[in-house]
């Protein structure tokens, strides 16, 4: 298994994983009900952003051509704080069959190697508060809560 930058040919597999990940978020919290257009939107987004190396990094775990996991990282500027750059994991999904095998940890280590090359010293992750699986994963990896986002419906949609 190798961890490598995602390519265009990986887009269908990544879209499938994004759908699974968002469906899982939907399970946790109805604020994250998935869009009917998720597949189209995800494909368009990936086509547009996959090569935006300045602001984003897309990693996949590839085992003999089979994409087993996917990670999207956003490089954020911190104009008020030091250090001035932060890498934020926006999406992270491991296909069920390959969980509990250390794949997540391996991807995280590869990411950290990449970030060191870029001299980025702060890493964070964004996920729905109610996603206990993500919370457990990151706490185990010694992340701690840095910011909170609160939300409420103004007009409840069905």
């Amino acid at each position, binding site marked *: 298994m190798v961890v490598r930058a995602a390519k265009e040919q990986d887009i269908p597999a990544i879209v499938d994983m994004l*759908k*699974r*990940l968002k*469906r*899982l978020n939907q*399970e946790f919290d109805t604020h994250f009900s998935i869009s009917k257009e998720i597949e189209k939107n995800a494909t368009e987004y990936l086509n547009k952003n996959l090569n935006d190396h300045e602001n984003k990094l897309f990693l996949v775990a590839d085992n003999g051509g089979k994409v087993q996991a996917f990670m999207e990282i956003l490089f954020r500027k911190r104009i008020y704080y030091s250090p001035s750059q932060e890498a934020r994991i926006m999406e992270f999904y491991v*296909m*069920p*069959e390959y969980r509990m095998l250390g794949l997540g940890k391996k991807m995280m280590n590869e990411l950290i190697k990449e970030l060191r090359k870029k001299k980025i010293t702060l890493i964070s992750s964004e996920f729905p508060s109610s996603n206990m*699986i993500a919370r457990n994963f990151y706490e185990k990896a010694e992340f701690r809560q840095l910011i909170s986002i609160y939300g409420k419906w103004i007009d409840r949609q069905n």
Partner: protein
Amino acid sequence: MDQQERTKMLGDLSVKLARFYKGKINSIPNVPIKKLSDFSVWYTPGIAKVSLDIAANKDESFELTGRWNSVAILTDGTRVLGLGNVGPEAAMPVMEGKALIFNYLGGVNAVPIPIRISSQEEFFKVASALESAFGGFNLEDIESPKCFFLLESLQKALSIPVWHDDQLGTASVILAGLVNSLKIVGKKREDVTIALVGSGAANIATAHLLEAAGFKSGNIIMVDSKGILQPEREDMDQLMLTNPWKYKLAMRTNSQRIKGGIEKAFKGVDAVISASRSDPNFMKQDWIRTMGKDPIVFALANPSPEIWPEKAIEAGAKIVATGRSDFPNQINNSLIFPAVFRGVLDARSKGVNFKVMVTASEEVAAYVENPTADHIVPSMQDLDLFPKVAAAVAYTTVQEKLARKTDSRQGFYRTAKEIIDTNRQRYSKLLDSGMIKGADEIG
């Protein structure tokens, strides 16, 4: 009389007799009371010393009280028979019936305890608190996946055997039937492929037991209402959260990663074990026609199997089993649980595990000396089955270091037989003397 009329007739009779007898079991003294002063031994002041002895050594509670032979039948009434969530009060008559079978076939004092609880954690707490009074727990008619949580957590936490009959009893008798079926068709368990149709309590436990008995996980294909379980199915993340037991099986079964609907699961497999929908038109003959050589079909839904046996045979099935007594090969939990509990109680076992269950299944299978397509499992009439299986179970708990009391297999057999026979003789005396009125005498 058709099936519907028969069910109504039996239901009406059940209500009439329930109203007359007002409870199917009773507690009667086990010791001689000839004069009132005897109570100074059976009760205070003499009994204080017995109490102190147990306080000094809690395992003495198995020798100085009826704990050794007492089993609690615990339910929250959330999945009673095919009726669904009828609540604990309405579960009581069913639990009484279970207690009757425990007593008649296994000589076990089973106490029905339907409880009103609001969460699985509360059930766990109540059950844990009752441990001190019982030699074993039988969980009964509890909805899935709560039943998996309770069985797993209680088995882990308690020092008495915890059994969930809808899982473990059914799985054990399925394994017994399968062992003899494979003997008949001349196949080895390590080679056969098996589709488990329905992924509820019975088949999830069956998958675990098959693995423990030497069947290959990868050769098992599990099917639920959404089709074949496999890791890439879209609902896997949801399953991981709501039913981790089913999720884990999805990860390690079906090594060929067959995807699709139920009909695909039948293709080429040696056996199908269906515990899914009580509808005789559910399983299609065309599906059976696609199975491997000499297909084995267990259609176990009650009251109606997923396919009538003659239809399955017409489609090529070599061996067919159902849950019903009016067809050959009844896969019936009652062949297992009275004997398993007789065994674990006689050994004062601290638990029950898959090894013990596999032993019970093998013993039930071996009871049928020359299995044929119409005779793969014994029947409840085979009364010597129960002490035999009990002895095998008790002896295995000794080997597994679960037993508080050890004996030889023959010794356990003698104990079990004596308890079962004496219990039945005592009951017969009450019946013969007219102290228990015959049902035919009720007007």
